[in-house]
């Protein structure tokens, strides 16, 4: 099984950033090396490490508040971790050269942009900064809105604004796209349009995408790998197909007098509020059945249930 399961609590104390930087494998677009980050008294991550290989489309998934946006801010050098290092395209995220920044297309949360500009002005503004600028990709996307090119971005809907912002990132023609919650505020149509464009863009090859989204089902057609970020900084990184194949959901029945099964090495997450109650596991049915028979003989394991990716995401991360 190709599951890489990293627990946050490493034994190595890397306070004050004294740990040596590991050499970056040549195929890595992003390497997060044992970072610890705190907000006041709250520790968001402890010794979190993660590698994104070049040419892959990787989704960072997690519930609200686990620190997805913070991780992207750390990656882009807008925050400095208490300890550890982030490297992007081979450079420390706090020392990204202008040339490297030109190779990174960055979408900030909420489709942040200079909305006091018009469609044409913002393209004219960005163009000179990027040598490989492809204005046709930008206009191809934004012209579909049927708006005048003098239309102010501030007067656009959320979806229209996202077209502009994503169009700019496509036009930049970056090697690495980091997209923070690209789907925020987008209806199904706009999301699908973006996915189509992104798929076509990725078809050119050689591109890496690292993205976060709340719309888990979109990931099914888009990503090669998923990274699940849990509270406390625990992460689970694996190819999507592997996850879809190995993560299972089973129905079970529970007598009124019995205690529900607790999460352990085999049972990833029991959900007693679902009808029927179900439990999630990376183990196969036989192994789960044996495990239950030994630990909770009163519980009768049912059939394996089919799951959408969203079901699996909830199964993995829990509802609350």
């Amino acid at each position: 099984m190709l599951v890489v399961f990293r627990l946050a609590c490493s034994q190595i104390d890397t306070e004050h950033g004294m740990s040596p930087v590991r050499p970056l494998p040549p195929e890595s677009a992003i390497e997060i090396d044992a970072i610890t980050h705190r907000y006041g008294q709250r520790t968001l991550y402890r010794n979190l490490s993660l590698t994104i290989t070049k040419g892959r489309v990787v989704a960072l998934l997690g519930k609200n508040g686990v620190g997805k946006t913070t991780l992207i801010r750390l990656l882009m050098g807008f925050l400095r971790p208490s300890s550890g290092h982030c490297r992007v395209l081979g450079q420390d995220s706090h020392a990204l050269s202008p040339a490297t920044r030109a190779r990174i297309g960055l979408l900030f949360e909420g489709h942040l942009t200079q909305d006091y500009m018009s469609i044409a002005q913002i393209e004219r503004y960005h163009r000179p900064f990027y040598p490989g600028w492809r204005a046709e990709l930008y206009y191809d996307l934004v012209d579909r809105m049927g708006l005048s090119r003098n239309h102010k971005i501030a007067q656009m809907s959320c979806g229209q604004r996202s077209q502009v912002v994503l169009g700019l990132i496509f036009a930049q023609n970056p090697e690495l796209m980091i997209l923070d919650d690209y789907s925020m505020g987008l209806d199904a149509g706009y999301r699908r349009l973006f996915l189509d464009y992104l798929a076509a863009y990725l078809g050119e090859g050689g591109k890496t995408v690292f993205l976060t989204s709340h719309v888990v089902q979109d990931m099914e057609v888009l990503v090669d790998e998923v990274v699940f970020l849990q509270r406390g900084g625990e992460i689970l990184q694996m190819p999507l197909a592997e996850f879809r194949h190995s993560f299972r959901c089973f129905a079970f029945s529970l007598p009124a007098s019995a205690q529900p099964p607790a999460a352990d090495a085999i049972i990833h997450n029991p959900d007693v509020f679902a009808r029927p109650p179900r439990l999630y596991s990376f183990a196969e049915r036989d192994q789960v059945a044996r495990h239950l028979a030994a630990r909770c003989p009163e519980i009768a394991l049912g059939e394996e249930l089919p799951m959408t990716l969203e079901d699996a995401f909830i199964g993995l991360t829990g509802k609350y």
Partner: protein
Amino acid sequence: MTARIARWSLIALTLALLAIWLPQVKALLFEYRFGKTQLFYSPVIERFVYKELLGTGHQFVYRDQDGRDYSREEFEQLIPFIYYKNMELWGQLPLELAGQRFDKAAIRAERLVLEFEPRDLPARAPRIQLFPLLESNPGRSRLRFPENIMRPGQALTFIDSDANRRDPTLTATFTRALDDAGFVFPVRATFGRVSILKAFDAGYFLLDDTGALFQLKRVDGAPWVRLVPLPEGLKVRALKISENTGSAHLGFLLAEDGQLYLLGRDDDPLIPLELPAFDPERMELKILFNPLYRTAIYSDRQDIHAVAMQRDFTPIAHYQRRMAMAEPRLVDTLWDSLTPFSLQWRLPESRYLQLRLCWHGAKACIGSGLALVLALAWLRWRRAPLLANRAFLALVVLTGFMGLIAFLLFPPEENVSQ
């Protein structure tokens, strides 16, 4: 690197602003109630007497140069020409002194005060070089401003104030008059008192290109020019003109060599004043005239001097004392101990604002030492290495608490390399 320069720039700016503002705040918080000592020459006992404020209340001492104390009334009776109105109220007029009788009219006729301050020196105050040349013979009791103004320069140009335009006729007339009197243009300096609230108008004193001094008046609309006779070799630095009724003196003339003269009204020769230790750069001078004596009193913020003179300005006696205000106050001592320097913004002897660096001397080591202890404690609290913070420590040693405050306002970031 640029961030480090940015932070130190802010620290430098803050330090400069603290060095300017803190002394001003101190002056506002700890106001200075001591005035200067009032020193006189008593024609009654022929000794110097003075009045001085002690402490912060209304406690004055009235004392003579020998240390004898007087009541206020006694003191005022020692200088009856100053307090002649009280003398009149107390029925002590006319006075009999030195075998002469002085009634109120005689006293008033002789009373005169001439003053000369550092601010009267050229370049101690900004001055637009335009001067209204009054009609010296107005034919009425009050002087009035003319509708034109004089611009001394390569010529004596007159500008009409209603039209804001050069008056060619007046310009030609007055320039020619100066030419005819031997004046060599351009005008190097112009001295006079611009006011219509004066007893008469003496016009202006113009220094020509050769250093000769001319008096220029407008009399009945026409130019009146006089070459002022100066002693051989005298180079004029400044004049202070005071037009007073009945006075034979038009004011002061300060020579380049620092000698002060009294300027007469007509062709009288200049009267040199013998004023030991007088420094026109920083001392205020008054000459008090009374029917018997002339007393020159001059002081900076430390010492006051008085020279009593005969009516012909022959010195009789000189007295000097350190004023009560010169005694250091606790707050000043504390301030000087806590801060190694300050930047003086307003100087009493100039209208110009300046940034004059004042070092507070060796006692500032106390403040720098205390600030250094606090700085070391702060570094220890931050677990910061001393060697890496040597610039900070040097700053605190050199600038004391001001440097410490400036640095702590803009400390280095814990996690940001600067």
